[in-house]
C-alpha cells in the first residue's frame, strides 16, 4: 500500500515515536522483541511501555519496508526468540529522522523557544 521510503526522499513524513524508539534501540546491537521493549522502557524511564501488539505490528511493517531484518541469535539464546537488527536503509532512515528532529530543535532554539541558542 505505502511505497517504501527511500533514504533520499526529502518529503518523507515524520516517523511515529514508536518506530523511532524501536530503530533507536537496535543501533547498538540486535535484540529480540522483549529486549526492545525493555530497552525502550529503560531509555524513556518507563514513560513508553510498548505492548506486544504494537511492537510486532511495527516489526512486521519495518521488515516489509526493509528497515530491519532478522539477525542470527547468540548461541545461548532461547530458540523461540528471534533477534532483529537494523539494515543499512534503517540506519539511514534513523539518521535522517534524527537530523530532521535536530533541525527542528535548532529552529526552536533560534526562535528562543529553548534556552542555549546556537551562535548564528
Amino acid at each position, binding site marked *: 500500500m505505502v511505497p517504501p521510503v527511500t533514504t533520499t526522499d526529502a518529503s518523507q513524513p515524520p*516517523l511515529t515515536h*514508536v*518506530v523511532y524508539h524501536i530503530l533507536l534501540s537496535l543501533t547498538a546491537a540486535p535484540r*529480540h*522483541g522483549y529486549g526492545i*521493549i525493555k530497552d525502550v522502557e529503560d531509555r524513556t524511564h518507563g514513560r513508553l511501555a510498548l*505492548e506486544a501488539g504494537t511492537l510486532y*505490528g511495527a516489526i512486521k511493517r519495518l521488515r516489509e519496508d526493509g528497515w530491519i531484518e532478522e539477525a542470527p541469535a547468540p548461541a545461548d539464546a532461547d530458540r*523461540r526468540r528471534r533477534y532483529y537488527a537494523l539494515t543499512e536503509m534503517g540506519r539511514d532512515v534513523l539518521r535522517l529522522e534524527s537530523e530532521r528532529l535536530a533541525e527542528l530543535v535548532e529552529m526552536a532554539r533560534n526562535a528562543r523557544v529553548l534556552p542555549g541558542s546556537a551562535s548564528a
Partner: protein
Amino acid sequence: MGMRLYRILLRAWPRAAREEYGDEMLDVVGRQWAEVGPALGPVGRARFWLRQYTALVRGRGAATTRGGGQEGMKTLLEGFRHDVRQALRTLLRRPGFSLVAALTLGVGIGASTSIFSAIHAVLLRPLPFGDSERMVVIVEQNRATGELGNGASAQNVFDLSEGAELLQYAAVADPYSYDLQVEGRAENIRAWMVAEGFLESLGVRPVLGRLFTAEDFISGDPVLLLSEASWVERFGADPDIVGSEIVLDGQARVVLGIMPSRLQFPGEVEVWTPRPPQPGDPGSRTAAYMPGVALLTPGASLEQAQAEADRIARSIEEAFPAAATDLSFRLTPVREYLFGDVRTPLWILAGAVGLVLLIASANVAGLLVARGLERAREFAVRDALGASRGRLIRLMGSEAGVLALSGGVLGVALTYGGVAVIRGLAPDLPRIETLGVNGPVLAFALGATTVSALLAGLLPALRFARPATALREGGRGQSSGRSGIRLRNRLVVLEVAGALVLLVGAGLLVQSFANVLDEELGFDPENRFALQVFAYGYEGNERVQFVNTAIENMMAIPGVDSVALTSNVPTSDDGVLAALDIDIPFTLEGRALPTPGQEPRAWTVWVSQGLFEVLGQPVVEGRGFRITDDANAPLVTVVNETFARRHFDGASPIGEVVRTPSGDSTVAWEIIGVVADTRPRGHASAPRVEIYRALTQSGSGNLTFVLRTSVPPAGIAEAARQAIWDANPDQSIWGTAALDDLLSERLAERRFNMTLLSAFALIALFLAAIGIYALVSYSVQMRRTELGIRRALGSPPSDILAMILKEGGLLGATGVVLGIGGALVTTRFMRGMLFDVRPNDPVALLVLSGVVLGVSVVAALVPALRARSIHPAEALRSE
C-alpha cells in the same frame, strides 16, 4: 483468562503474520505479565490486558510505520462520524420516507425479538437439572395399541432399575397432597412422594440442608423436603426450619432440606416426601400414573437403553402375565418430554417472524433503491468530484445503518409490549415466568438490527455504487431507472410471496381453531363452577353428612341454581382440578369371555344423581340415576355413546349387564341409560369409552362439586369454598375452577399460535402492500412523460388507469404464484398444529391468493388514479 482472550484476539491478525510472530508475541506478553501482573490489583490487571488487547487489535496491519497508528484510527472514526452525519441529514430531508422505513424495520425487529424472547425463555435456557442430556423420563406404553400413559407404575420401574445396566437410578414420583393446618383451616399442598433415586436423577442440589438418603427410605421416619418458594412464603425464609418439624396430615415431619424453587418437575410442588418401596404387590403394577426418571449410563445411547428397557418389559410380562399386558417403557429425553409439544409451534413462529423481518428489510431496500434512483444525479456529481466507489457504498450503507438503528431502538421498545402480549396469550407455556427482556434478548435485537441493516443497505449500495451506472442514469430519465425498477420488482414479488405464505399458514390455524370450537363438547361449560375435594378420613356416615351439609350450604348461596357431584369433570387436568383416571376391565354378560388380561376396559366416573342435568350432559337413551338408585337397590350403570357404539354396534345397550371384577369374583351392573360423549381433555381430545356409577351405590372420596349458577361463577367462588369449611373446617380444598376457564386454557396454545401467526401475516401483507404502492407510485412518476404522450395521442384516462392497475396486479400475481409454491412446501411442517384441515387445503390457498391479489390491485389504485389525471402538457413540462 487474560492470556486466553489474547490468543483468541490474535486470530484477528492475518494468518501469515500470526504464524510469523504469534509465538513471539505470546512469549513477550507472558513475560510482561509475569513481571508486573502479580503486583497489580484487579483494576490494574484489567487495565494491563485492555492495553494489550487494544495494541493487538490496533497493531493489526495498521499504519504503524509512519503517519501514526492513532491518527489512522482517528481518521477512520472521523470518516464514520461524517458518514453518519451525512446520512442523518439526507434522511431528515425526507422525514416521511425515513419514518416509514424506520417503522417498518422497527416492527420487523420488534416482532422477531419478541418471539426470540419466548424461544429463549422456553427452549434455550438451561434446564434446572444436573445432567439434562442424560436424563430421560419414563412412562409406560401399550405395545399393542401404542397408547402412551401418563406415567409408569412404581413396581415396574423398580424392576426396570434392578435389571437395567444402561440406566442409573430409574425411579418414580407419586403425586400426592397433604393437609397443612394454616390459621385453623386445612390447606391442601401439592407434593411428590419420590422413590429412591428420583432426586439423584434430577441431579438437584438443596439450597439448604440435605436430600433423602437411602436410610430415609428404609426407616420410614417422617421427613420432608420443602420448596424454596414455600420456605420463603410460609416460613419467612427462616434457616432454622431445617431440622424442625412441620405437621402434615396430622403427622409431624422433620424438614431435611430446602429445594431450589426453579425445580418444578414433574409438576407444581411444595413438598417432597420419600416413597418407601412396596415390593410384592402385583396389583400396584396397573397403577401406572407416576412419571419416572433415570439417567442414561455414561456412554449409553438412548436407543441402547430403550432396547434394554424393552427386554426388561418382556420379562416382567412373562413373570406377571395377569398384571402386565403389552407392557413397554417409553424413554424420552427430558427436553423432549417438557417441550415436545411447544417446540414445533415456536420454531414455526420463529420462521414466520424471520420472514416478516426479511419482508421489512426488502421493503426498506426497495425504498432505498427508489431513493437511489432519485439521487442518481447526486451520485453522478459526487462521482465526478472524485468520490470513490467505497465512499458511495458507505454513504448508502450508513443510511441503511441509521435507519436500522432507529428501527432497532423502536424494536426493543416494541419488544416490551410483545413480551406482555406473549405472557397474556400463553400463560401455560413451560417456563413462561422467565420470559423478559434480558441480555440475550437484547443481543438478539442487535443481531436482527445488523442483519436488517445489511439486507436493506447492501443491495442498493452495490447497485448504485457503480459510478458508470450512476452517470448514465443521471442523464435523461426515460430508460434510466429500468434496472433499478427490475430489482425493486423482484423485491416486491418476494414480499408478496412471503406474505401469502404467512397468510396461508395463519388461515390454516384460524380454520383449525374454528373446527376445534365446532366440536361437540357433550356438556355446557357456561356458568358452571367446579370445586374438588379429597374427602378421605371420614368414618361411617360422616362423609355423606359432610357432603349433604356442603350441598345445602352451596344451594343457599345467591346465584347458585343447582349442585351435583362427580369424580371427574370433563376437561379437568392435573393443574387446577386433578384428573384421577381410573380404567377398569369389564366383561359383558352373554358374550364369550376374553382371555384374562385381554378384557376391554372403560374409564369409570362416579356421579351423584342430577349430575347430568347440572352439567347439561344430555341423556340420549334410557334414564340417568335416580335418588332411588341407592345401596339397597339393584346396581345400575350409565354408559356413554362411545361405549354403546364400540360394544353394541349401534344396538340399544339398555338392559344389558356389565360385569366388573370385585376381589376374586365379579359384580353385575345393569345398563339403564346412555349419555352424550364428553371430551376428557377439552375440545380437541377424542371421547373415550366411559362407564358411570352412582355415588350412592359405590362411594368415592374424590369428589368434585359442580355448581350451576345464574351469575358469573367467579362471583360465588369464595362463598363456595366457605360452604365446604362451614360443613367441615378440617376439609381441605384441592382446587376450584369455572369450567369455561378450563376449556379456554386448553385452547390457549392454539389461540397463541393463531393470534401471533395471523398478526405476522397481516403485518407482512401490509408491508407488501406498501411495497407495491411505493413501487407503482415510483414507476408512474418515472413514466410521467410517457403517460403524458399517451394522453396527448388520445388514450382515454380509463386506459391509463387500467394499465397502471395491471402493473400492480401483475406484481401481485407473480408473487401469488411464487407464494403458493412456498406455502405448499412450508405448511407441511404445521401438520401437528392443524385440526380437521389439511396443510395444502385448496380453499385456504385459493381464498387467500384472491385476497393478496386484491390487495395488490388496491395498493396500485392510488398511483393509478394519479396517473389517470396526468395532463398531457403538465407531463411534458415535468421533464
